[in-house]
Structures are given as C-alpha cells and as structure tokens.
C-alpha cells in the first residue's frame, strides 16, 4: 500500500507540518514569557494552545521520523533517532534533527514533571527550547528538497516569524520595569 515514494512524501509533509506547529508553540511560549503579554481570555488560550499543541506536534514528528527511516531510499538507522550524526545519509543535517529530538526529550520530560521539580531547574531547561527551535529550523531548511520551493519557503517563513517573536520579547519592556530602572539610576539623597 505504502511504497517508497509515498513514505518519502509523507515524511516531507509531516516534517514541514512539524516545523509549522513547533513555530506556533514556540511563538506562544515566547509571548507568554514576554513583558507585554496577553491578559485574561487571550492569555488562557495562548497557554492552553502552547501546552496541547506541543503534544499534537509529537504525532507529526513521530510520523516524520518513522517514515524517514522505514522508507528504504536513503539509509538512516534507528539509532540515528536519538544519537546525533550517526546517520549514513546526510550525517550532519539528519544529526541536527536528532539533536532537536534529544533537546525535545529534555524539555518534554521536565515539563511533564514541572510540578515535581524546582521552578529554577524547569525554567533553565525550558530555555533549551530556543536552541531546539533554531536547530529544527536549520534542519528543515537545509534538507528541504529543491523541487518543492514551497516547503522550503514555509520553513523560511517559520524562521522569520519565530525570529521576530524573539526580537519582540527582547525589546518590549514593561512600564513598571522601566520606571523601576529609572528610579534605581537616580542618585540617593
């Protein structure tokens, strides 16, 4: 039923969908952590989608990985799912995907255990998401096949949107914080 080329298409398609969903989850996380974040209804929706879409993304990621390996056209071993840079096919670029999976496991496990581990540890390890997202975007863009520019453009657009979210988080400040910094800078009389 599923011959090699169908698996190949399925792997490409689920890869791109994973990148899109991951970017949405990523941006919602960046927005929640930002200084000028949404309030009330919007905050609840953002947080809920962030949590549950991250789980939904795993389905597409799993199909992406399984089809890439089962499809025999290129040689990627099962070991390459967790051990980076051991794939026969494109060791570096497949390895970036593997690296993202390893980082994803760290973020997933710590978030699942969030209420059992100290906030500082969870927060520190949740920062890994930034590296994971960047690695995933590079993996998606560099491996994007040349005959389908649309797929590559989708990944590129995700990179631009995610990058904009990070810039937004960095530059946007809160009025209270600005005021506190001004007061701190004043001379003590």
């Amino acid at each position: 039923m599923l011959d090699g080329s169908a698996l190949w298409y399925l792997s490409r398609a689920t890869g791109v969908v994973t990148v899109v969903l991951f970017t949405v989850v990523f941006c919602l996380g960046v927005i929640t952590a930002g200084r000028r974040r949404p309030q009330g209804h919007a905050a609840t929706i953002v947080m809920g989608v962030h949590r549950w879409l991250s789980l939904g993304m795993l389905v597409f990621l799993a199909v992406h990985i399984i089809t890439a390996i089962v499809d025999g056209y290129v040689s990627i071993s099962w070991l390459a799912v967790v051990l980076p840079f051991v794939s026969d096919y494109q060791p570096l670029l497949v390895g970036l995907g593997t690296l993202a999976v390893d980082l994803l496991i760290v973020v997933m496990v710590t978030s699942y255990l969030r209420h059992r581990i100290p906030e500082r540890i969870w927060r520190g390890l949740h920062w890994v998401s930034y590296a994971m997202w960047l690695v995933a975007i590079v993996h998606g863009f560099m491996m994007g096949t040349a005959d389908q520019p649309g797929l590559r453009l989708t990944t590129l657009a995700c990179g631009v949107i995610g990058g904009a979210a990070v810039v937004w988080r960095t530059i946007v400040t809160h009025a209270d914080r600005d005021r506190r910094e001004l007061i701190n800078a004043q001379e003590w009389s």
Partner: protein
Amino acid sequence: MASSLDVAKIAVDRVRCTGHGICAQTLPDSITLDEWGYPIVTDDQADPDEAKLAVKLCPARALYLR
C-alpha cells in the same frame, strides 16, 4: 491533596504570581482579578478537575492545591 473529597482547596502563592490572570478564567467562580490583574480568591473550594487544570495552566506556577 485529598483525592477522596469532591472539592479541591486552592491557594495562590503571592510571591510567585505575576498576574497572567489565567486562573480567573479557568476558575471564574473561585477567583476574580483585582484592578492590577492579580487574583483574589473569593472561594477556595473548587471542582478538583477544574482546579487541577488551572494549576497546570498557571505559567508562574503560583496557583496550588492544599
């Protein structure tokens, strides 16, 4: 956490709370927001399932069951 009871007692850690306001959306019968967006617990008895969801959704991990 008393799992046998059919109500959960909720509380807010005021040091951790950063005023996202999500608890007031998920537990509207128990929590309202003050004028700065910080929660006021009007009724600390809540439905356990809804309370657990609200605890999970709190980004600052300031809402807890006791």
